[in-house]
């Protein structure tokens, strides 16, 4: 994970992003609810990928806790709502709860590195799933949890959840920008490259890693809670889905690790890819998606954004260093 693998020509990227956000926001007026839902998924996965990027991209820790946080968020949110808490407050409540959970857990789980951490984080998903299905009195066990369906018709519901998810995605994006330009982001990049050396230059690695892990949980919690209200029914196996926990890192990789826009590009590309593929090939969509992933590993190791980078580099190879310099400057300022 190359910290300054490249710096997206900052202004251009932001403009593209703004355009994208506008398009997503305008979806209810451009197309029917299926596209609204698609847009909602793009925002949802975008937010998740951005969240994962904090721990997986910047700190370089292969975390598979995403589903744990999402599931936890959806249960907490659902339970709060059933307890009569207004929807939006329930979402916030879930966010807070999940953040605290991650913050407390981080210290312990981040003692592991590499594979160990990967497995530890994925086990967390399993453990929570088991708890959710065991704790019948609260979670309803395997029967799942019903949340009152939001009335106001499909169009209204569609918009509510699209804008909710979009808002979360924007928060995640803003947070990423802040981190990217902060002491924290710089420290995390140091950690991802050489943890001992980072320690030596005075970085409190444990605190930084825990911060990254917590950041990677915050918005997962929100997304989970929103999702729960959206589907109005959650069950352990789906809420704590292993598939989700594997998908999100793939999306981030697909876009480009440790960058502001990589995860967003990756999530969008992945969702659209899935949509188009399964629709065309009823029997083989999974295999095709697999092939796509394999090809990506070989031909786009740096993620989709790398393409622009390569082209850009080729064009202005001469001015490369100067550019990198300006980039560093922008990143530092």
């Amino acid at each position, binding site marked *: *994970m*190359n*910290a*300054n*693998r490249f710096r997206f020509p900052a202004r251009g990227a932001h403009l593209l992003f703004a355009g994208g956000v506008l398009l997503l926001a305008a979806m209810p007026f451009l197309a029917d609810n299926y596209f609204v839902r698609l847009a909602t998924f793009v925002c949802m996965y975008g937010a998740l990928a951005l969240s994962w990027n904090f721990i997986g991209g910047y700190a370089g820790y292969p975390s598979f806790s995403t589903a744990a946080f999402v599931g936890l968020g959806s249960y907490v949110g659902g339970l709060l709502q059933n307890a009569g808490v207004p929807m939006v407050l329930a979402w916030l409540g879930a966010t807070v709860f999940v953040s605290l959970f991650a913050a407390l857990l981080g210290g312990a789980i981040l003692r592991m590195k590499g594979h160990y951490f990967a497995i530890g984080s994925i086990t967390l998903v399993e453990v929570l799933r088991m708890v959710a299905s065991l704790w019948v009195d609260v979670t309803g066990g395997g029967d799942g949890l019903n949340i009152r369906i939001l009335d106001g018709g499909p169009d209204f519901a569609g918009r509510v959840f699209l804008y909710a998810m979009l808002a979360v995605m924007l928060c995640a994006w803003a947070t990423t920008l802040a981190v990217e*330009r*902060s*002491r924290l982001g*710089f*420290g995390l*990049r*140091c950690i991802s*490259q*050489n943890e*001992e*050396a*980072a*320690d*030596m*230059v*005075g*970085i*409190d*690695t444990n605190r930084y890693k825990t911060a990254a892990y917590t950041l990677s949980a915050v918005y997962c919690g929100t997304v989970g809670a929103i999702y729960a209200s959206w589907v109005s029914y959650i069950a352990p196996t789906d809420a704590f889905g292993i598939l989700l926990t594997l998908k999100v890192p793939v999306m981030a990789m697909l876009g480009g690790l440790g960058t502001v826009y990589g995860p967003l590009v990756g999530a969008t590309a992945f969702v659209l890819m899935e949509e188009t593929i399964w629709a065309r090939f009823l029997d083989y969509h999974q295999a095709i998606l697999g092939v796509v992933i394999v090809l990506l590993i070989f031909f786009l190791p740096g993620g989709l954004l790398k393409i622009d980078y390569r082209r850009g580099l080729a064009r202005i190879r001469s001015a490369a*260093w*100067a550019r*990198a*310099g300006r980039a*560093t*400057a922008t*990143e*530092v*300022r």
Partner: protein
Amino acid sequence: MGRLLEVQALDKHFGGLHATREVSFALEEGEIVGLIGPNGAGKTTLVNLITGVVRADGGSVVFRGRDVTAQRPWQAARSGLARTFQIVQPFPQMTVLENVCAGALFAGHAASLAQAERDAMDHLEFVGLAHEARRPATALTLPSRKRLELAKSLAMRPRLLLLDEVNAGLNTAEIDQALALMRAIAARGVTILLIEHLMKVVMSLSQRILVLHQGELIAQGEPQAVIRDARVVEAYLGSKFAARQAAHGVAATPAADTTTEVHR
């Protein structure tokens, strides 16, 4: 001149190996002290103990009046203890500038990233790497990397700088430049503990010398006096040689072997 560092009976075992035995010494503000001793004498272990990389089994380290025996490396770094490594370890995927930035930002108490970058630039100027600032750290030559390592440690605004074999693998010309650099650093009022094999460097820089042998501090004091110390000579050149010298009444003058490393 106040007391900067006080090491009390520092003890460390690695399994069967007794790495340091009850080592005690002190450093005064602004001193340059050489720490010498044959390979495996426990020099690096001592540095690791002082900077909190490894925990001492016994004894204490007092730095600027605070007991820092139990502190972690990052705390050491922030409290003004900087060290360079025998094997330089930069952040491979960062530019030279970013590497130094890290030091300035997290230990050098730079107010902001911008501030850190300005400081970093100054330090790069100082060690003469300014022109390389934008290059990836991994693209540097060995001597330049050593300079980068120095710049990084300086950026940490150290009160005490522990230089672990900064000259290993440099040629005579490069060593002379390094010497000049270290003098300049000292001139800034940074206290330096210098771990060296090259007697030339040690002799010309150090005001005092500590000699470590098999984890034990066998001698310390004036450079000239120390290297005439029988136990030191024995530690380095073996007992026979020492005996013969004693017989002939000649001393192993440092001039005899300047750039070549004494032991071996």
